[in-house]
């Protein structure tokens, strides 16, 4: 564990980070520099989305992967998104719609400066991987209007009946073969090599194995990780531009070793304030986090001894814990299956099953939903999810509200009050169980 002293500002704060977090940060920084250098290096850029991210395929064409959601997250963490959102609203975007979109549009309007302080390049192609979120389609139509570049629609059908059918796979493979690949060939000038794709997929699978071991380490008591706040760091490389690379294999191997060491030492997660104290509450969290007040939000949990042992948000870029791995033996089909299986493309009953099972498997005290104003894909139906999970598990659930990157929708006092009440509710429930025993 490394401890940093914040150089500016009073009072000076120390921020603790796992070595894996530092490594992750370095990887992300390198990637942003590659993006910023693209005009000089001549690298071409494909913008796409985290759910349904086809990084292995993108790499086959030597394209750099740029993810607007991740850019919005970075803007949120750096407290720039508020101004970007306002800028987008000023130019005609409704206050009602997704703030990821508005942060991205606002960032573009203000010069498209990335988290490294340098301009992000215009995309050469927009790969509209339309998976699990309706807004994606409008988002890339809006970007296409600005950039006027090639745009490829890859439509992933929704798993409304909780199953992947042959028709869905065939449809997606056909789109890949007849639309996505030929366009990427044309944009990049690189001929598609399916064996190269297989190589990348093989690497993805290795990293995915280690990611699952890391996330499932939270079944241990105390949990060595926080699978929500810490989990966001862990998923960064594999949900972003690194899936299918040696860097990802190395990172997840390193991370796994670090986590296993913490298990062996009986340690809890590392928080920004150092090792977490005694684990008092084990939670499953549904929904994305707030990024504008990320650290403050996290602190509300670890100050109370609450650790998140499983979360749905760490499954938006791929659900691996039920056995799915990218399969090099069926390269296009596996990409289709991957897109179909991401969390937000799963039906509501499937999501309820997942969350209820997490509570059992991870021996959690209950479910907490962070409902995001911006994200209908996650949020619509969450109150029913809450009641149903509570009913099935007998564990208490709670509901808080915030937003991804719009600081106007983060009310610290309100959230803190609700969390404190929730922790009391868990205590009461425990007391009730103890009394009954």
């Amino acid at each position, binding site marked *: 564990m490394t401890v940093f002293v914040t150089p500016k500002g009073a009072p000076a704060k120390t921020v603790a980070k796992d070595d894996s977090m530092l490594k992750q940060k370095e990887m992300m920084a390198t990637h942003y520099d590659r993006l910023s250098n693209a005009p000089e290096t001549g690298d071409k850029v494909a913008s796409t989305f985290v759910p349904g991210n086809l990084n292995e395929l993108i790499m086959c064409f030597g394209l750099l992967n740029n993810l607007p959601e991740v850019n919005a997250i970075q803007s949120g963490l750096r407290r720039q998104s508020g101004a970007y959102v306002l800028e987008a609203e000023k130019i*005609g975007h409704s206050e009602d719609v997704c703030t990821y979109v508005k942060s991205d549009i606002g960032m573009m309007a203000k010069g498209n400066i990335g988290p490294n302080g340098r301009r992000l390049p215009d995309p050469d192609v927009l790969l509209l991987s339309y998976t699990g979120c309706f807004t994606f389609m409008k988002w890339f139509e809006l970007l296409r209007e600005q950039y006027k570049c090639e745009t490829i629609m890859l439509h992933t059908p*929704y798993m409304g009946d909780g199953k992947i059918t042959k028709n869905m796979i065939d449809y997606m493979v056909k789109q890949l073969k007849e639309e996505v690949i030929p366009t990427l060939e044309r944009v990049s000038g690189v001929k598609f090599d399916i064996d190269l794709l297989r190589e990348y997929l093989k690497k993805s699978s290795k990293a995915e194995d280690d990611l699952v071991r890391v996330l499932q380490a939270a079944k241990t008591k105390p949990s060595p990780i926080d699978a929500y706040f810490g989990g966001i760091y862990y998923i960064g490389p594999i949900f972003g531009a690194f899936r299918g690379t040696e860097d990802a294999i190395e990172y997840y191997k390193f991370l796994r070793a670090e986590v296993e060491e913490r298990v062996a030492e009986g340690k809890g997660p590392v928080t920004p304030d150092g090792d977490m104290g005694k684990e008092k509450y084990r939670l499953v969290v549904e929904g994305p986090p707030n990024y504008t007040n990320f650290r403050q939000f996290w602190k509300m949990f670890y100050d109370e001894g609450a650790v998140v042992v499983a979360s749905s948000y760490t499954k938006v870029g791929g659900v691996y814990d039920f056995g799915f791995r990218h399969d090099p033996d069926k390269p296009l089909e596996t990409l289709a299956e991957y897109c179909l299986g991401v969390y937000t493309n799963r*039906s509501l009953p499937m999501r309820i099953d997942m969350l209820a099972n997490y509570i059992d498997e991870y021996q959690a005290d209950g479910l907490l939903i962070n409902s995001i104003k911006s994200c*209908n894909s996650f949020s619509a139906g969450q109150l029913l999810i809450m009641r149903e999970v509570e009913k099935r598990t007998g564990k208490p659930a709670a509901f808080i509200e915030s937003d991804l990157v719009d600081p106007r929708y983060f009310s610290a006092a309100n959230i803190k009050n609700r969390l404190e009440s929730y922790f009391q509710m868990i205590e009461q429930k425990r007391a009730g169980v103890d009394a009954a025993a």
Partner: protein
Amino acid sequence: MATSVNGSAIASVVARAQALFDDLSFTSARQWKAASADRKVVGYLPIYVPRELIHAAGMLPLGIVGGGDQLEVIHGDAYYQSYICRIPRSTIELGVSGRLDFVDGMLFPSICDVIRNLSGMWKMMFPKVYIRYFDVPQNYKDEIGGTYYTHELEELLRELAGLRGKPITDDELRHSIAVYNENRRLVRDLYTYRAQRPWQTPAAEVYLMMRAGLVLPVEEHSALLRDYLEAAANAERPRRDNCRIVLTGVFCEQPPLNLIKSLELAGCYVVDDDLLLVTRWLTADVPVEGDPLENLARAFLHHSESTAAKYEPDLAEKGQHLVRAVRRTDAEGVIFACPSFCDPALLDRPMLQHVLKAADIPYIAFKYAENSGQMQPIREQAGTFADSIKLWSGT
């Protein structure tokens, strides 16, 4: 012989449609079902489902577009956060309050994340009802999106056949396609007539005629449309010095009827709109000969309306449907009326506005909810828009 509005043929047709609109218990659909023990009703939400399949199964397709401004939502609000639009909460209210207890199946089309998730909620809440999330392709090539969609239609057809207990034949489907072709022709006739003589066919009346098509058997609805067209043509109605506008953004959650009336009272004749698109989603007749499902699939891919829930592959074509609607109907402006928190309509709006600006077509925009009660701001905004068009357009 020309008739006056009061006590006229038109009044009785409109009164019938108004009664259907007001009836939140869906009495006519209940009566239809009660007439025979083997009858079934399949509900559907906006924007589009192939009603021909439901009809071919001998069932009644029942359009559900929320509860409007007359339904008190008590239970529905407990299922949604304040930042979710209103249609799912009032739809749940309809379900939980037993108003849809006679419905045997529900189709939730691919339109947005809220309706998508509502399909799963309905499964949890009404486990005895047949429920299907009805996905449609966003790829419009016959061999890609067309093949996928044809298979989806086959699956829906199989499930409907299961629901009725015997297979649905191609001839039954062909018959249903013909019946709906006829209905769509009448709808198009009405829209064309209104664009020509909007003072004869007020927007609120046209809307009521379309709404009737959501609850009546298609054959009865076609008869109603014929009656209305004939009565409207024979009515003597005053022609006002209104401007002509296209109303857009109203394809899912419905505006209150008073809002539609307010636009005309404020000086805007509605000459085209995207209300209740299911009634005219397919823009040309579907061939009756040949494979019926393939024909429906091709019609969907190549002859269907443009709307925010559909991907537009061609940047140059984005929003042009609206420009064409303005030109076709000789409209003078566009009113964007979008439901609050409606991602598809609100995210699409800036792009459409850019297209209109480039085409030099004036527009205004506001939001509403299905239970909006205060029309004065909308009347003022629409009135100012109408005045500005009358005073300054073409100068």
